[in-house]
């Protein structure tokens, strides 16, 4: 009797397992052929000299050694780190501030939300890159406004000191999607907490510090991690704004853009692969450090 039950159970389980594999089949093939296979190949390429035309030639760690002395690579790291370290926090602070203002049962919320959200959907497009090129050009929109006040603005994009700043502005312009996530997070904070705090005599600022911020930290953390991962890979806008060069004077030479130049401009596939692996390491380290420090500031409520 018992054995019969177990065999029937295990038959059902086997059946379920087989079904699971069928459903996972496309993903599994993708994982093997589109992700893991190429990852292994790219690790191999990173130790070779490879230009697509002839077979890869093993060069040991030469590509990695070359990174140590490649001044443009160093420049691209500085550009990308500047962008990530300034752009991501600036975007998150803007998104959080507006989410909090909008959360207070404000009239016209759907309209505000739509208006703020729209740029984040368009921000990655070539069209907006073209727009930015004009807006911050010598005779662009920004300078047209400055001219109204008698100020003659510089060519923001043609000046190496300000070009990167225009791209950071573009990044902050797309704060809407993070704001929407914050808004949803704010809605999930139980009303009772505020009522209780209010009865205990806590003012608005105190409520914000002791209720809103702690309960929102998991979402801030989530946005931070994704924001960093994505910003490290910024490509399109740097490519469009600089005409693919990363100029002026390499001031918008993002890591992704330099990698593209190496791979598809000069066909240095080995070196580009090594660069890709360095990027993986950088992102992994950033994420690990974030997770490590998250224990100190991210608050997870127990009831979840």
């Amino acid at each position, binding site marked *: 009797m018992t054995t019969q039950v177990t065999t029937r159970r295990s038959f059902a389980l086997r059946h379920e397992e087989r079904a699971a594999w069928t459903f996972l089949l496309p993903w599994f093939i993708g994982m093997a052929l589109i992700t893991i296979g190429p990852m292994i190949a790219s690790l191999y390429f990173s130790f070779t000299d490879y230009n697509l035309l002839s077979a890869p030639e093993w060069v040991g760690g030469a590509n990695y050694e070359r990174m140590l002395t490649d001044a443009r690579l160093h420049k691209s790291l500085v550009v990308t780190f500047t962008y990530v370290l300034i752009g991501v926090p600036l975007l998150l602070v803007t998104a959080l501030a507006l989410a909090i203002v909008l959360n207070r049962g404000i009239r016209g919320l759907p309209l505000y939300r739509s208006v703020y959200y729209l740029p984040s959907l368009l921000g990655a497009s070539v*069209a907006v890159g073209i727009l930015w090129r004009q807006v911050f050009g010598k005779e662009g*929109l920004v300078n047209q406004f400055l001219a109204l006040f008698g100020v003659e603005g510089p060519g923001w994009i043609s000046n190496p000191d300000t070009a990167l700043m225009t791209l950071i502005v573009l990044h902050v312009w797309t704060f809407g999607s993070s704001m929407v996530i914050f808004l949803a997070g704010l809605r999930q904070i139980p009303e009772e907490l505020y009522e209780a705090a209010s009865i205990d005599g806590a003012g608005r600022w105190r409520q914000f510090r002791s209720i809103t911020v702690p309960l929102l930290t998991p979402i801030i953390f989530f946005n931070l*991690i994704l924001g960093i991962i994505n910003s490290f890979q910024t490509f399109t806008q740097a490519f469009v704004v600089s005409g693919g060069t990363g100029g002026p004077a390499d001031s918008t030479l993002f890591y*992704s853009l330099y990698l593209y130049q190496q791979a598809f401009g000069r066909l240095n596939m080995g070196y580009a692969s090594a660069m890709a692996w360095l990027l*993986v390491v950088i992102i992994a380290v950033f994420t690990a450090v974030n997770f490590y420090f998250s224990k100190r500031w991210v608050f997870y409520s127990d009831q979840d």
Partner: protein
Amino acid sequence: MTRIDETEISPLNATQALTAPRSRWRSKPAGRNTADRVRGLTKHALLIAVGAVMLYPLLWMLASSFKPESVIFSDPSLWPSEWDFSHYAKGWNALAHPFSLFLTNSAIVVAGALIGNLLTCSMAAYAFARLRFRGSKILFAAMLLTLMLPIHVVLVPQYVVFSNIGWVNTFLPLIVPKFLATDAFFIFLMVQFFRSLPRELDEAAKLDGAGYWRTYFQVLLPLSVPALATTAIFTFIWTWNDFFAQLIYLTKPAVQTAPVALRNYVDATSGASWGSLFAMSIVTLIPVFIVFLIGQRYLVKGIATTGLK
């Protein structure tokens, strides 16, 4: 690499953010005294100012696409004092092929990506959310890890393979991976959604004699319209805007998509005709804008019909 435990990232993710209930307004009773009203007005003034600054460049680009070339660089207004409709016709026919071809190419790539993502990501999500199998936890973690993986690390080998099998300058490198559930973000999104649906539904279907496929197709998918809509909307917008992959794989003008063509147009004009450049930029933004308008309504509807935890 870092381990991502699904409980470590808050259950509140982008999906829920977009489909979260709109209830529970924390509004105070309408401002009774003057101080409250002044504060409210200041707040609105500030919010409107921020919105205006954000939208101004976009609206200005739209207006400029109707302004004579000579005033684009001197007229910051949002309403052309003199209308010039020639930019659209000029831009449309400025490259080797009419712009309609590039838009069609983009539409084909988007359609392929849409079908692929909706089908295969939801299939994978069903297995992860509902079925028991050996190694499910490890595979789920591996799936999440791929979210963090920069595409650059698979780029070169993928290019080598695709070019060896003659897929460069076809849409296949852009579409086929979508049929292999490579967008882990959407799998994660749908896993979260499926988990919010009561398991009793599956069990009831099973008692009625439905197999796994029928449960997936006829029970879970119809209930998952909000998650599928979110996936469809994001797939549409991200694929339509995508530039990196399309730039690499589409080098012949006849197969180029709208963003790549637009980029080439910048070089072709070398900044000499901003009017038509803006006109074509507007043309490529319109589909995204329409999807945004439709999607907004859809998402709000999804919010009402689903009670996410």
